[in-house]
């Protein structure tokens, strides 16, 4: 009974946090790209555009939802639905933190702890191609069809190197359970964290995985399915209102999933690069205090009178979170273990998400033949070689 209640609470929490993150990832992306291009980005709705995601939801809700009469209705409606729910599903096997015990309740931070976690993620993410390919075909529009076809070919081509890049960490940890994979990356070796990317020698595998992840999520520089200047908007030309929003949510949810998987497989999951628990708690606290300090500093030179109130408020909230990390480091070790794990998992995932956005602001798009050549003539042999070399060295070590 207790198990069911804890599961219900955890599922609700994770769903809420995931959906909020999805909405705010959009805001972060617009802000980062704006600053890369020397603009300010969303600024009008709420302090520094922080309420922009809510405004977007209201806007998309109240838009007219056209279903053109030349489409194949069943698949046309099914496609965004498939895209969203398959994209949301795979987060349920990601472990966010260690097993903790707070208020006498023992639980794993993370939803499901199953033996085939990574297989489930691979299966669900390869089903994701149906959403886009069906959308492109059912729209019965030439641009959409081109986008859908391109996307299907691109996603299956990059799925091979992705699966092969995943196989290398599996050789190191000998488990398909994501929690066990993270557990094998605990500790450090002469001060170097014992993560697969460092002591496992998977730096090359990590880059292969990330490149394939960009192609799997249809992000720039591999966003051929929706190449604006050739295909208008690719597979979602004929979609409007919430159905259109569905594809966007699916894209961001997929980004969060692949970044989480990269964190778990290569970057040591929730493990901190600082060996002592107090040390990593203090580090987390310092990061929060620095952020709060920056907010207080900007409040003194506020661009708008409104910022003089909102910035200090946010600053106080963030220093409060920092104080919790300090308390976890010195007063309450059980709490410290939990929130440090969450902090390091979140920090690593967010840095990878930032890289996704950064590259979108930096690189132009590939040409389609270059994209396919790259997948089959470089990525596939390279990932195979990476896996064989890993196997060789693991066997050599005994």
């Amino acid at each position, binding site marked *: 009974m207790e198990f069911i209640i804890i599961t219900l609470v955890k599922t609700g929490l994770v769903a809420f946090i995931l959906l909020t993150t999805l909405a705010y990832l959009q805001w972060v992306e617009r802000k980062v790209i704006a600053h890369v291009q020397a603009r300010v980005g969303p600024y009008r709705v709420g302090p520094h555009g922080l309420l922009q995601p809510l405004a977007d939801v209201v806007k998309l809700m109240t838009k007219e939802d056209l279903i053109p009469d030349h489409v194949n209705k069943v698949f046309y409606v099914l496609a965004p639905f498939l895209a969203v729910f398959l994209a949301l*599903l795979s987060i349920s096997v990601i472990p966010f933190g260690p097993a903790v015990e707070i208020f006498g309740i023992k639980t794993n931070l993370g939803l499901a702890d199953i033996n085939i976690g990574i297989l489930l993620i691979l299966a669900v993410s390869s089903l994701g191609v149906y959403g886009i390919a069906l959308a492109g075909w059912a729209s019965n529009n030439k641009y959409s069809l081109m986008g859908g076809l391109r996307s299907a070919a691109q996603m299956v081509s990059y799925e091979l190197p992705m699966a*092969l890049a995943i196989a290398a960490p599996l050789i190191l940890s*000998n488990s*398909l359970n994501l929690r066990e994979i993270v557990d094998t990356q605990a500790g450090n070796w002469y001060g170097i964290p014992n993560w697969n990317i460092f002591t496992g020698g998977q730096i090359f595998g990590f880059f292969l995985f990330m490149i394939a992840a960009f192609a799997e999520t249809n992000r720039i520089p591999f966003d051929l399915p929706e190449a604006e200047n050739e295909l208008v908007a690719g597979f979602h030309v004929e979609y409007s209102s919430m159905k259109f929003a569905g594809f966007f949510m699916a894209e961001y949810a997929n980004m969060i999933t692949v970044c989480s998987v990269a964190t778990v497989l290569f970057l040591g999951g929730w493990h901190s690069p600082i060996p002592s628990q107090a040390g990593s708690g203090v580090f987390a606290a310092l990061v929060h205090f620095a952020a709060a300090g920056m907010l207080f500093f900007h409040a003194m030179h506020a661009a708008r009178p409104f910022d003089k109130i909102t910035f200090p408020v946010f600053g106080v909230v963030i220093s409060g979170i920092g104080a919790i990390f300090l308390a976890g480091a010195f007063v309450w070790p059980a709490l410290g273990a939990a929130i440090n794990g969450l902090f390091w998992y979140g920090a690593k995932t967010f840095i990878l998400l930032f890289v996704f956005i950064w590259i979108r602001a930096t690189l132009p798009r590939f040409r389609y033949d270059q994209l396919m050549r790259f997948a089959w003539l470089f990525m596939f042999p390279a990932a195979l070689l990476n896996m064989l070399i890993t196997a060789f060295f693991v066997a050599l070590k005994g």
Partner: protein
Amino acid sequence: MPQGYLPIFLFLIIAMAFPVIAILTAKLVRPSSPSKLKLEAYECGIEAVGNSRGRYAVRFYIISILFVIFDVETVFLFPWAVRFHQLGWFGVIEIAVFLAILIVGYVWVYKKGALEWV
């Protein structure tokens, strides 16, 4: 442990309910005034010629066939990778032979030009 799958099913229900609820809520508040022009296929304002159920490049078909072949191969690699510590050097040699056979096929496909897009 079948109870380990409970959170996945719960999350599946949430993930399936969420888009349905969002689309149904939108149905209550949004306007709906379709017209003949709005319902046409969008081709940048020019009247659409025919529909898109025609023929397209055979390359996509070749890619999907190749994917099936090589994806089955990666499926074989996963159980091997998970039991690698028990297999040791035997595992390395075994997989080298397995991959050598596949690489012959890969080279043949490359020589035939199936991997060149243009």
